[in-house]
């Protein structure tokens, strides 16, 4: 027991931001556990013989590993994956545990924390590092591999399937859902509060733990809908013509519902830094969304823009739309051309990687910016001091991809 607790101190010393979570675990000694395992209620089941035969620093690694299962909510995500994909049974349990271990093991060790013997890594199955549990689950099957991995068991905390030795929700010293959330939240705060100390994987977790990223298609759709739905374009009530219901209620003035199909102009950044695949995907998406909000295909036009803007091409004639350009970017010319076109667009959608100067003034129509992700570096060889500005506050910005 002392060795186990000394190992916890070790883990706290090398990963101070996990201290709250490590100390919140309640230790249960149990001989039927193969090694160390956690359940969803933050109890940690430990086999005494495993502790006595494992070196202290490796035990510290196991502590961090087990608490990571809980922090990353693997039991909940595992149960959800099983529900969605209808996969059950012991083989599936093992597969989920392995996938969860892959997600954890590729980034928690090193930097003072040695990797325990027998830790499974994505590379063992020829998979890349840095994916999420669900992505690993989609990519491998257990066929033929079971003998080597079958001993692996991190408890229901890793995959959501109950084990015989676990105390269950009614047992003593369990944490309620709110308490678990609170512990996870405090760890996330500890990581974001001192970003320098934690590795990339943990920082990403802390950013997303309580604000899971949403699929960009839905976000872009929502932004576009909101933009075309705002007063002015789109469908809204209007007193310009009386409602047909007015006939039934004499003496009452009723507004009528009028649909004004929105005109959407898509300004596309065709500079060399944006790939064709990215552009194609985003463009199709914009067209689909604007159809869904009631726009007709001929009301969507496209301007390709690098340092100079091309002509606005209506999308109905753009089956074989050629995106011209490839040099540097100046989206300002694209905006100017979009606003010059007649009839004027109701919404401008700019698809760009953000490495561009922006118009200094808010354009006279609503703006949605679809931003392709780019690493923060990007040094311009000619002008080392050049820092691309962030999209302006008047645009609704949706990160794409």
């Amino acid at each position, binding site marked *: 027991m002392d060795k186990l607790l000394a190992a916890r*101190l070790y883990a706290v010393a090398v990963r101070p931001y996990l201290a709250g979570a490590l100390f919140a675990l309640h230790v249960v000694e149990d001989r039927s556990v193969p090694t160390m395992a956690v359940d969803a209620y933050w109890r940690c089941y430990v086999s005494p013989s495993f502790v006595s035969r494992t070196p202290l620093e490796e035990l510290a690694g196991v502590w961090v590993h087990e608490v990571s299962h809980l922090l990353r909510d693997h039991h909940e995500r595992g149960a959800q994956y099983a529900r969605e994909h209808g996969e059950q049974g012991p083989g599936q349990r093992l597969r989920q545990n392995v996938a969860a271990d892959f997600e954890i093991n590729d980034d928690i060790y090193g930097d003072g924390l040695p990797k325990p013997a027998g830790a499974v890594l994505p590379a063992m199955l020829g998979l890349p590092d840095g994916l999420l549990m669900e992505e690993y689950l989609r990519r491998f099957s257990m066929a033929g591999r079971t003998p080597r991995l079958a001993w692996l068991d991190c408890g229901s905390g890793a995959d959501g399937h109950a084990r015989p030795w676990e105390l269950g929700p009614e047992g003593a010293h369990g944490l309620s859902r709110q308490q678990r959330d609170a512990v996870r939240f405090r760890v996330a705060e500890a990581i974001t509060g001192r970003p320098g100390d934690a590795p990339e994987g943990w920082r990403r977790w802390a950013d997303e733990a309580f604000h899971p990223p949403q699929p960009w298609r839905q976000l872009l759709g929502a932004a576009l809908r909101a933009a075309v739905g705002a007063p002015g374009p789109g469908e809204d009530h209007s007193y310009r013509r009386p409602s047909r219901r007015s006939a039934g209620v004499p003496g*009452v003035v009723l507004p009528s519902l009028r649909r004004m199909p929105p005109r959407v102009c898509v300004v596309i950044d065709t500079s060399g830094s944006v790939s064709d695949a990215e552009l194609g995907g985003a463009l199709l998406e914009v067209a689909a969304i604007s159809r*869904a909000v009631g726009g007709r295909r001929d009301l969507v036009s496209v301007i390709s823009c690098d340092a100079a803007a091309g002509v606005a091409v209506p999308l109905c004639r753009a089956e074989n739309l050629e995106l011209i350009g490839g040099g540097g970017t100046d989206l300002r010319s694209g905006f100017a051309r979009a606003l010059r076109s007649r009839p004027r667009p109701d919404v401008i959608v700019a698809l760009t990687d953000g490495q561009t100067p922006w118009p200094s003034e808010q354009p006279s129509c609503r703006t949605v910016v679809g931003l392709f992700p780019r690493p923060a570096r990007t040094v311009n060889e000619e002008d080392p001091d050049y820092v691309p500005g962030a999209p302006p506050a008047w645009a609704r910005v949706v990160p794409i991809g």
Partner: protein
Amino acid sequence: MTSTTVPSMPAPVPLPAGRPQLSLAENLLTLLRTTTTEPRPDEQLEALTLAVAADLPVLLWGEPGIGKTAALTQLATSLDLPLTTVIASVHEPTDFSGLPIVGEDPAANGVPMAPPQWAVELARAGRGLLFLDELSTATPAVQAALLRVVLERKVGALQLPPGVRIVAAANPRASAADGWELSPPLANRFVHLYWVHDRDVVVRGLGGVWPRAELPRLDPAGLPDAVAFARRAVCGFLNARPTLIHRLPTTETRRGGAWPSPRSWEAAMTLLAFGTAASVSRDVLATLVRGAVGDGPGLELLAHIDRMELPDPDSLLADPASAELPERGDLRQATLEAVVAAVGARPERERWEAGWAVLVRAWETGAPDLLVAPAKALAALRRDGWEVPETVERLAAVVGLARRAEDSVARTAAAAGAKSAAGGRR
């Protein structure tokens, strides 16, 4: 469409004379609709009931067909309130802001804004549950008109009586393909609850037994304490985190959801008071608070409440021998650190010795590794001439534990250094 051979049916039973087929269908439907209920704890329903009791507008988010309406019907029955359902998306703004009626001499008398029939009936009944369905598919103009209904309970010139409670429902945008975004001002007026179905409840309900949640009951004796607690919690928290008092959602992901503002903090305080007076579980309270001010601020408030409930360091120092320390490791460590900080704030010899006594007490009742950091900090507070109390010798095991961990860290670091040095030479 697949075609299968129709199994030979038994000969139809001859109908009794004078009994048309439709009334048989009625009987069958009656049988199908006869269900019973069983008591069953249901956190979502508990949270919903509490928010409705607290007279805060509730917004239920849930996929279409998940049983939001059924839950509302049940809630209305159990609260004994008549239910008025208004599908927001098929109405026009004037149905909520009032229909302008041109009377005689509008310049002198003005144009009255007449309320629609449902509102008049609701006002006449004096109480009721107003259910605004499909809020997210209502046009922006309708949403704007609803602001007043939800916040001021006014439909045109008609004031809804205080006995009316408001619940709305919306589809999350993932499933609302043709929906409008909920505007942040409207979103801020609601307590957001996310409605999910429970597999067991659905299967058992279709089998004929629906759950009946025990409604939270307010404890009449505990009301003043509940209010004092809620005020202390929210004010103390906002004093410590003033930046969270008002924060408009900036990112696309958080638009249309709960966000912190003075209005929603007031709602959170009301919910805390109601939850405390009804002694609901922490999970229900968490659902409600997060639904009012958003996930991040809500969780921070709850963490603040957790810390508020830790034992007071000074009373622990006053009577270390019978100190009750929290069971949970992280809370226990936080308590011990608070004790050490209290000693450090007013370093006197008796308090310093009492601090050691608290640590010994902690060592007797829980895991020893929690004591390492507080013990080090307390030792550092020692002044000249202060003798270490004898009882502290019992903490020797803790020191050993700490040393063991430190040695191992140093060993690993040295090994790693040697390895990388060797790697560098190669």
